[in-house]
C-alpha cells in the first residue's frame, strides 16, 4: 500500500469518526482530487498510469504481471488462426522483395519463440526448406480476380485470405471464396466504409480491416480523427451482433491499420475496439532500420525487426497491467481519459477527472430538466433530442 492509499483510508476513517455519517464520494473521486495526482496529469497516458496506480486497482499484485495477448481469428471456420501478439504485418506491395524477405525471417524467428503474429501479403515468399514459413499468412487477393481459388491461391497454402471490397463484384468474390476456403477471410473495407459492413459479415467474413488513413480521406470522415473511424467501425460490428446470442468466440474481429505504428497507438486502438492492429510493413522496416549502423542486408533487418517486435510486445503489456487486466483485449474506451470534448464525443471516451463522457453529462442535465419541467419524453425522443444537442 502506498502513501496515497494510506492517506485516503485514514481520511475516510477520520471523516466517519468525526461526523458519524458516511462519505458520499467514492475512493476513485478522492484519488482524482488528490493534489499530487492531479499535478502529474500532463496527458492522457500519464493519467491512465495514475488511474492504474490507485487503491482499488491491483497493479501491485504480482499475478497481474501475466497479460495475455492471444487473439483467435475465425468465426465458424474449421481452421482458426491464433496470434500470440495482436498484430498483423500489413504487407505493402510497393516495398522491395528483400524487405519482405527480412520480415519473413523475423516472423519465423518470433514464431519459434512462441510469439506468433501474422502477415498480410500479396507477394509470394519463397520459403526454403531451412526456412519454411512458421507464422500465419493472410494472402491478399487482387480485387479484379473473380476466378476460383484453384491454382493461384492454394499454391502458397495461406492460413487466411484478405479481400479488398470495392464494389458488388467483391461481394460475389467473398461468396465464392467462402464456399471454397475453410480458413478465416478478412475484408478490407477502407474504400467503402461505413457501408456494407452488415452484408459482408452476413456473407461470412471473419473480420473487417480498416485503414484509418484511407477512411479519413473519404468525404464522410473529412476533418475527423482516426478515433471516430475506429469507434464507428466497432459500433458497426456491434450493431451487427445486436440482439444476437452469438458466442463471443465466434465474433468477427476488427483490424485497424493505417497510422498505428507505436505501442501507445496500438493500446489506444485496442481500447477503442480494435482486436488486431495492422502494422505497416514499410513503417516496420523504417523503425527497425532507424538506429542501425550495419548495412541493411536481409539478416540484419530481420534481426532488427525481431527485436523491435519483442520490444513492442513488452510495451503493449504495460498499460493493461497497470489497469489491472490480465487480458490485453479487455481494455475499453472508458480506460482512456481525454480532455477534449470532441474526442469524448467521437469515441465515447470519459472526460478527464470526472469518469463520464460528455454525452453522459448532457444526458443527465437533459433528464433533470425534463423531470423538473414535467415534460414527457420517451427514450427514443430523449435520444433524438440528445443527438441534436451533441450533433452526432
Amino acid at each position, binding site marked *: 500500500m502506498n502513501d496515497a492509499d494510506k492517506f485516503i483510508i485514514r481520511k*475516510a*476513517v477520520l471523516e*466517519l469518526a468525526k461526523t458519524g455519517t*458516511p*462519505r*458520499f*464520494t*467514492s*475512493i*476513485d*473521486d478522492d484519488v482524482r482530487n488528490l493534489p499530487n495526482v492531479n499535478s502529474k496529469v500532463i496527458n492522457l497516458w500519464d493519467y491512465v498510469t495514475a488511474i492504474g496506480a490507485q*487503491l*482499488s*486497482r*491491483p497493479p501491485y*499484485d504480482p*499475478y*497481474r504481471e501475466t497479460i495475455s495477448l492471444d487473439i483467435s481469428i475465425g468465426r465458424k471456420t474449421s481452421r482458426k488462426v491464433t496470434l500470440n501478439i495482436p498484430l498483423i504485418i500489413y504487407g505493402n506491395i510497393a516495398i522491395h522483395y528483400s524487405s519482405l524477405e527480412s520480415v519473413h525471417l523475423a516472423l519465423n524467428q518470433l514464431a519459434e519463440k512462441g510469439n506468433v503474429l501474422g502477415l498480410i501479403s500479396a507477394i509470394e515468399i519463397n520459403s526454403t526448406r531451412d526456412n519454411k514459413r512458421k507464422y500465419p499468412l493472410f494472402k491478399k487477393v487482387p480485387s479484379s480476380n473473380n476466378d476460383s481459388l484453384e491454382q493461384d491461391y492454394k499454391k502458397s497454402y495461406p492460413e487466411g485470405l484478405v479481400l479488398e471490397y470495392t464494389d458488388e463484384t467483391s461481394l460475389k468474390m467473398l461468396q465464392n471464396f467462402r464456399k471454397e476456403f475453410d480458413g478465416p477471410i478478412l475484408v478490407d473495407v477502407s474504400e467503402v466504409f461505413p457501408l456494407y459492413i452488415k452484408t459482408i459479415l452476413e456473407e461470412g467474413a471473419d473480420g473487417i480491416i480498416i485503414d484509418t488513413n484511407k477512411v479519413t480521406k473519404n468525404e464522410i470522415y473529412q476533418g475527423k480523427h482516426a478515433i471516430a473511424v475506429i469507434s464507428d467501425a466497432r459500433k458497426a460490428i*456491434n450493431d451487427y*451482433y*445486436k*440482439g444476437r*446470442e452469438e458466442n*463471443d468466440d465466434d465474433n468477427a474481429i476488427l483490424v485497424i491499420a493505417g497510422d498505428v505504428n507505436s505501442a501507445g497507438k496500438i493500446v489506444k486502438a485496442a481500447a477503442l475496439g480494435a482486436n488486431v492492429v495492422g502494422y505497416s510493413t514499410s513503417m516496420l522496416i523504417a523503425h527497425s532500420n532507424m538506429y542501425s549502423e550495419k548495412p541493411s542486408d536481409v539478416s540484419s533487418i530481420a534481426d532488427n525487426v525481431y527485436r523491435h517486435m519483442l520490444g513492442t510486445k513488452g510495451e503493449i503489456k504495460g498499460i493493461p497491467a497497470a*489497469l*489491472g*487486466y*490480465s*487480458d490485453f483485449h*479487455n481494455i*475499453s*474506451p*472508458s*480506460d482512456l481519459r481525454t480532455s477534449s470534448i470532441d474526442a469524448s464525443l467521437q469515441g465515447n471516451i470519459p472526460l478527464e477527472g470526472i469518469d463520464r463522457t460528455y454525452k453522459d453529462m448532457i444526458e443527465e442535465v437533459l*433528464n433533470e430538466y*425534463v*423531470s423538473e419541467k414535467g415534460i414527457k419524453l*420517451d*427514450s427514443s425522443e*430523449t435520444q433524438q433530442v440528445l443527438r441534436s444537442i451533441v450533433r452526432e
Partner: protein
Amino acid sequence: MCGICAVMMENRNKDFPIGCLLYKMMESQQIRAQDSTGVAIFNNNGSNKEFYRIDYFRKNNGKYNQVTKKVPPERLDKTLYELTLDPNIVIASCAKEMNLLKDIGLVRDLDAKYKIRSLQGTHGIGHLRIATSSRVTPDNAHPFSTIVMPDIAVVHNGEITNYSKLRSSLELQGYRLFTRCDSEVIAVFIADQLLRHGDLEKANYEFIKKADGPFTYIVSTPDSLALVRDKFGARKGIFGYNPGNRNYPSFWAMATDLSALDSVGATFYVETPQPGKPKIFYNKIMMESIPT
C-alpha cells in the same frame, strides 16, 4: 476492502432468524467497510405465490426514496417496462422469495431501519461496502439484483476491471443495467447464463472466463449459493460449517474474514474455494457434502 458474507441453513430449515447470523457476521467485518450495507434473505416457504415484489429507488433532487410495489405475475412485464422508462428510477430487485434491503450507513443503521435481525429464511447474503468506483448512494449499495429474472442477488468484494466491456456486451443483448457499479454486471451476467442453460456452476465458470480483475463474490438463487473467487485468487473468501445443537440448527457460512465465521461458530470444515472454481451450496445436497 468490502466485506461479504452468507449463510445457508441445512435441511431447508426456514424458521431460524438467519438475519441474526448475518448481522453478527457483518458486524464482525464492519472494520473492512463503512459506506453502505445490505442483505438479501430468501424464504422459499411457498407462501407467496401471488405477487412479485419490485423494490426501487426514486431519485428526486439528490434524495433517494425506496419504494416497494407488489404486482401480480400477469402485470409484471408491463410494470417493469413502465418503471424502466423513468430515468429517475433505479430498480433494486424483482423477487418472489427474496427480501433485499440496502442503504448507506453501518449494519446497525440498517438493522434500526429494517429490523434485519428478526428476518427468517433458508439462506441469505450480506455486504459491507467501501466505495471504490461509483458514488456512495443507496442504489449503489449491495446486494445487486436484476430484472432479467427474479430472485437473483449478488454481493461482491474486489473489482471487475473489464466491467465496461462486459456491460456493453450485456447491453447489446438488450439487458438494462441501472447503476454504474461493476458488481451489477455479475448479477445480470449470471441471470443471462441461467436463462440459457439453468446451470449455476456453468454460469459461474463462464463469468470467471470472461471477467478480469481481482474479485470474490457470492451469488444467491432461490435454492443455492455460490462462492466464487477469480482465477488468480487475488481476493479472499472462506466457508465453514456449524453442526448446530439443540438450540439452533446446523448451517454453512461464507465470509471474507475468518472472524466472521468465528462470530457464528462456523469453524468446522473451514476451507477456501480454489481460485477460479466456484463452490456451490445446494439446499438438497448439503448433507451429502459434509465429510463423514
